[in-house]
């Protein structure tokens, strides 16, 4: 596990530290280590996968594929770990590639950065392989053990009919 609580001052290699978090998150999800993934989240964070590609200020007033607070995230992960999810029997295998990581903003007061990235997920299951693309925005608290303070995954084809998305974006 990388150390997100590094003593390095925030203004050195912020991008590298953001990369550490994003790559670690992708590895946990590819490894289906959902329990460890859950621990990466700050308690006040929202995990959102919208049904439209266009960015919105407030996703709480529209329908999303996923709009999880800490409680709903925990239920989702408990279900995934229960071993009785038909949509994951057999499990989808995923391979994620995170690229184009860019720092958009730094909130020194809250020790937060806003980071966008391009996400490609190759999903293999039941003899078929498909590709999912998304623009992802993270808010990260790089000084925290639970660094993910918010995440919005805008699927490239969010407004089109989806295949199964149980494995998490």
């Amino acid at each position, binding site marked *: 596990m990388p150390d997100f609580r590094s003593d390095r001052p925030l203004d050195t290699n912020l991008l590298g530290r953001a990369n550490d978090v994003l790559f670690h998150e992708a590895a946990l999800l590819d490894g289906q280590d959902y329990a460890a993934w859950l621990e990466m989240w700050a308690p006040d964070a929202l995990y959102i996968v919208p049904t439209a590609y266009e960015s919105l200020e407030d996703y709480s007033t529209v*329908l999303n*594929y996923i709009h999880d607070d800490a409680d709903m995230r925990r239920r989702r992960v408990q279900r995934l770990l229960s071993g009785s999810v038909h949509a994951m029997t057999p499990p989808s295998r995923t391979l994620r590639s995170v690229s184009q990581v860019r720092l958009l903003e730094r909130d020194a007061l809250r020790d937060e950065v806003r980071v966008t990235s391009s996400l490609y997920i190759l999903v293999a299951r039941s003899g078929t392989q498909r590709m999912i693309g998304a623009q992802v925005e993270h808010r990260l608290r790089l000084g925290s053990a639970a660094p993910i303070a918010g995440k919005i995954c805008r699927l490239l084809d969010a407004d089109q009919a989806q295949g199964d998305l149980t494995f998490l974006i």
Partner: protein
Amino acid sequence: MRLDLDSLPALVGPDWIDGRLYTCADIFEREIERIFEGGWVWVAHESEVAQARSFKTLAIGRQPVIVTRTDKGELVTMLNRCRHRAATVCQAERGHASRFVCAYHGWSYTPEGRLVGVPQPEGYEGVLDRSALGLKTLRTESYGGLVFASLNDAVAPLSDYLADAKPWIDRFNRQAAGYPLVVLGDHRFQFEGNWKIPMENTTDGYHLPVVHNSYLRFVESETSDRLASVMASDELYCLTLGNGHSVGIFDADAIDLDLPSRKPVPKHYEQLARELSGSLPTADVARILRAVGGVGFNLNIFPNIALSGAFLRELRPLGVDRTEVRHIALGMGGGPAAANRARLRIHEQFQGPAGLGSSDDREAWERVARGARAGGDMAVLLNRGVNRERAAGNARRAHATDELGMRAAYARWREVMADA
């Protein structure tokens, strides 16, 4: 798979169907002609085309159509096909337009479908009768906010077609707590399988504790108790409503939301109650809390929609083994933002490709589609509860977990498909 279509009546029994109903491409072609292009098909909720000149596009069967609201407030459905050289005249899925302009040669039409513009008309002098060349309009009728259209001009009135489903549509609409019920958004997903597999699913109380085991274990206990009680309770029933429609009750306390509840308000609505209490009188708060979780029944309207608890499910047949499913979220039009936020979060929890419920339904349907490739003419059984089914007036009634609704839907299917 090829099949002699004259043998169709022999493929549907009173309590079983031949498995080839899911897999035979010839049967699918006839379904498109007879069921989707010959009868009433749901095309919109009125709230989706609320404003004058708003429109929505979709297909009835395979035929692209536009649903519009005219300046006079009327709903019109017309073929999305230019009268000149057949190009679609509207490409967007929804929006506002005062004219539909064909991009090929520039012919333009009003929201009523009238042809009003033909560029460079010199060559058409004495040739074109513009008044006869509007977009072809279809029979369009609505009930309780649900808009249906038919490619068949001779189809019986919608009101007759909906039969005894109408009072259940009225009851479904009460979940808006006095506000108009409106569309808030939709979840779209596809699966590899026939459209009739999910048609059965919304009248299938039997599958709830099995397919949704992992959902029931991790949602709020009030929600899981509500759904798990379907198996245990004797007072829960399924009722046929005519023309292949049926209703299945999963929570008798939430059949008529205008009547007081026998149960306490679920704990997970406490925060919503506090938010609403700041700005609304106690009676209004109580009415919203009563309604916010939706009704306690699934209403199946043959062939391809279901009003299910708190949402509307639409099935779009894309091929014999490919179906698009839309789970449409509904809310209180002009109602408190907190109540609609709660409705959205309830929908997201269960529904859609990432939902804790739909994802397992989808998997079960694909397994049915895959399994049905085996065994050729082997039967798919619909006989649960056949011996406890009984007459109830003109209808038939059985337990909520029985397969009565499926038997009713396939009896209608046989009638429409097997007629010479």
